[in-house]
């Protein structure tokens, strides 16, 4: 049962990844166009996903992602390869998200969004139904996402960062320690407490919901 999901695989060898990083960094310093494309193709999605989970605001996340890549491009000369490129970029992302959150709480907390209906704000392409999954599955999945996003939002930013980096971004404890600039023990503690808090939030939200009323009906 439980063993089926356990991550028991041997730690990956980093030599290949490190040499890839170094090659990419050197190409970026030389101004090679493919290197810029490669960096974006490797990191724009995970960085956006991380920013989105940390901030829970798509427009704010887009700004943060742009700021992150601007910093990466401008400071690539200062990258000393003491950590992996991924860790370095994620650290910048976490810091930028932290700054954005602080700025948000200072300046935009009292703003009221005019377009409060997300369905209306979407592009028409986004609302075309996808034929791959059934509407029930899609609705169920979306419901789950909404619940988790709401629960994540209620977490303390410290625990939220740790849980997101571990469970969504799938980083190792050592990488998380580097990204957050804390010890390994602190990372373990934050992940444990963060997961517990998230579980409690989810359990609470499920408990508060009214039970679905299913009425049996004969097919005509």
């Amino acid at each position, binding site marked *: 049962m*439980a063993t089926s999901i*356990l991550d028991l695989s041997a730690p990956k060898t980093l030599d290949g990844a490190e040499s890839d990083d170094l090659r990419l960094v050197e190409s970026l310093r030389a101004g090679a166009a493919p290197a810029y494309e490669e960096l974006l193709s490797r990191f724009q999605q*995970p960085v956006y996903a991380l920013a989105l989970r940390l901030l829970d605001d798509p427009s704010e996340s887009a700004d943060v*992602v742009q700021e992150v890549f*601007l910093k990466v491009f401008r400071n690539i000369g200062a990258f000393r390869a003491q950590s992996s490129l991924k860790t370095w970029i994620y650290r910048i992302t976490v810091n930028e998200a932290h700054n954005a959150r602080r700025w948000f709480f200072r300046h935009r907390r009292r703003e009221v969004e005019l377009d409060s209906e997300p369905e209306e704000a979407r592009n028409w392409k986004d609302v075309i139904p996808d034929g791959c999954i059934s509407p029930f599955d899609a609705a169920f999945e979306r419901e789950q996402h909404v619940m988790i996003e709401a629960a994540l939002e209620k977490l303390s930013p410290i625990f939220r960062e740790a849980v997101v980096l*571990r*469970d969504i971004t799938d980083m190792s404890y050592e990488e998380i320690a580097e990204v957050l600039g804390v010890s390994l023990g602190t990372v373990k503690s934050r992940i444990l407490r963060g997961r517990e808090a998230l579980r409690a939030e*989810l359990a609470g939200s499920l408990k508060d919901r009214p039970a679905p009323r299913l009425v049996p009906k004969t097919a005509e």
Partner: protein
Amino acid sequence: MSCENAQERISLLLDGRLPAAERENVLTHADACRECGSTLASLQGQRALLRKMAQVPVPEVVAARLSVLASHERERQLARVNIGERLRRTAANIDLVFENLMRPVALPVTGGLLSTLLLFGLMMPSLSFSHQNGGYDFSTAPQGSLVANPWDLGADDDARDFPIIFASPDQAKSDYVNIVNLTIDESGRVADWSIVRGQVTDEMKDIILFSHFVPATTFGVRTSGTIQVRQSLPPCKYTSCSATVRG
């Protein structure tokens, strides 16, 4: 193993951070304890849900903005690495600034220049300029004081005996039969005339119609003036003439 210890280790168990022996202990406890088993199962489900949330597509707008950003930053990086590239970039920037500066001005300036040329081209034939008339010219000093020029009607010797003079209107006029006041405009032509005494003879009419004068000037600026033409009894000898143009 107590429930408290097991629950603290479940998180590490999920991440594969427990030694083999400890892992077995926790799993055994979770099988036996309903609460710990439930915690393990719910954390597994929670983690699986969180994993799914990693697959967020980057919006097209964001991707496009990042591509533009990368392109700009690459240009910047190239300029930093290569001096030639830096110069080229600087030249391109200057060119761009110059173009942006001049483009709004270029069309109005060209249009204005062309319309000015067209206007002057059309007006040129109708513009009149003062004609120099050799020995018939009269001139004044800047304050309008009298400057006399010899009256010369040309090579005709008979005409030189015609007793006609030009004089200042305030000079004594008792010796003359016909006196006419001429008003001279800024271009030196006769603009008007009036008879003071006698009549307008043919010679006077010729003067009115065909003579050209150097107009009076005030502080170097041309202005209108008055001159008096006096004629004694005809026919007699022409005399030398003098003129006054009063500004």
